[in-house]
């Protein structure tokens, strides 16, 4: 059917196909292209031998080099750990107080702590520990659960009001919702708390009596608070849930309670130490 002719212009044979008088040249592929093609075929065979390639019935051919991305990662992590071990081993061996005393170690811990803080803590406490409504500021010198290095490390390790057995726990009674105080008593004590906060306690007011009987056990007579039970100081203008009278009445009536994860469940011990040192040095460490 098809007749192959020689094309007089190009000197090439035609394929012999003809459509409406149009004929197709059968020009061979360039030599370089053919060589590259066969080279890739040979490369593929080499690849099958060296790298994971063919599936078998219940596995796959691992290849002579035994490559796996997870294996490569493990090796990289081991190398990275080794590279950091000069400093990390010192952090691991020292307690937080010793880290802070050693100038070089402190610099390393601050750098490591900052990275870990920005990834894990800044979502709630803000970059640089500026805090937000309901999430305490870490850059000031007021501490709910204590501001010493050991206190901070403990809080980071075990968290606050979570399922961890060592977590910090405390609960303020629902003075209003459970009927422990009458609305007018709550109003009076809120006024007294506001007077405490502006450093001019309203002596002899009805609120003072309510405060002494119900609040002072945790928040102290002078409103200094008590870190052991996470009771915030009330004798300053630092507020977790705003310092308006409405906000204080709401808190006394049905308190909100903050919570924090136990970071020892997610981070290794040296990262927790670096975080404690970093937070302690944000500005307000005691």
């Amino acid at each position, binding site marked *: 059917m098809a007749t192959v002719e020689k094309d007089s212009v190009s000197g090439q044979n035609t394929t012999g196909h003809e459509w409406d008088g149009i004929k197709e040249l059968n020009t061979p592929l360039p030599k370089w292209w053919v060589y590259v093609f066969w080279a890739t075929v040979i490369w593929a065979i080499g690849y099958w031998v060296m790298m994971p390639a063919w*599936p*078998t*019935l*219940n*596995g*796959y051919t691992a290849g002579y080099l035994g490559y*796996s*991305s*997870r*294996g*490569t*990662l*493990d090796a*990289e*992590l*081991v190398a*990275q750990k080794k590279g950091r071990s000069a400093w990390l081993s010192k952090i691991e061996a020292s307690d937080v107080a010793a880290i802070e005393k050693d100038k070089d170690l402190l610099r390393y811990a601050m750098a490591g702590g900052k990275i870990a803080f920005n*990834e*894990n803590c800044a*979502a*709630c406490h*803000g970059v640089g520990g500026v805090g*937000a*409504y*309901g*999430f305490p500021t870490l850059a000031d010198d007021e501490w709910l659960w204590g501001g010493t290095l050991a206190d901070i490390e403990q809080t980071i390790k075990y968290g606050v009001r*979570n*399922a961890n057995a060592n977590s910090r726990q405390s609960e303020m009674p629902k003075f209003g919702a459970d009927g422990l105080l009458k609305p007018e008593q709550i109003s009076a004590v809120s006024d007294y708390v506001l007077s405490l906060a502006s450093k001019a306690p309203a002596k002899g007011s009805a609120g003072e009596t309510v405060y002494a009987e119900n609040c002072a056990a945790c928040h102290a007579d002078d409103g200094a608070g008590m870190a052991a039970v996470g009771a915030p100081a009330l004798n300053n203008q630092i507020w977790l849930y705003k310092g308006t009278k409405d906000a204080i009445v709401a808190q006394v009536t049905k308190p909100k309670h*903050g*919570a*924090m*994860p136990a970071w020892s*469940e*997610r981070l290794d011990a040296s990262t927790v130490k670096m975080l404690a040192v970093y937070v302690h040095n944000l500005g307000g460490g005691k």
Partner: protein
Amino acid sequence: MFKHHAKLETNIFFLAVGILLTIVVGGLVEVVPLFSIESTIEKVDGVRPYSPLELAGRNIYIREGCYNCHSQMIRPFKDEVERYGHYSLAAESKYDHPFQWGSKRTGPDLARVGGKYTNEWQLRHLINPRDVVPGSIMPGYKHLMRPLDYADIAAHLKANRVVGVPYTDAQIANAKKDLEEQVFADPASKPAVAASYPKAQIGSAAGKDKVTEMDALVAYLQVLGTMVDFSAITPEAAKKMNR
């Protein structure tokens, strides 16, 4: 052999058979071994089907298109493992239909977000992300504070069982009860839902008297990446797990 090439190309029947054979061979080689290769899904303890509340939350995650910006796949690269934690295992999404690995990260990966933040943070962040993360470009999801429609939750469990998720008859029968219990039970009281679905986050995020869509979504987020205990998996154990 190449001489007869023209016959194959010019005969529609032989061409169709040839194409079919090529696809069949390709399919057999690429797809069939995945069902028999033992290392496709690692053998690890802890991965369980989603609790009814988490499953409802997962449906909301898909409905709201969270996967458009958030992946759930920590790749085995050093920088990802350093930031997010242990790389994702296939086993961790074996009960996901469909899985939420995703291919784009406008926001961070969520494969290990469970337990990283408190319920309170998740709630406020979902209502208005700027309240807690000033530079965030994520939209707010305030509308999730509406009641969750869970009348058909047992049917969702059943549908998942059809595609291979091992829900028991009791779990399907108790689906509605488990869902409500996960929101309203006191975690300290050791509710039945916690026994049926270990590590489920008990308690309401939204804190209202109704089950909200927010409760479901937060319960789902809080269980992501928490089922497998990676502290027990050493690199040596991981190697065996992969092979």
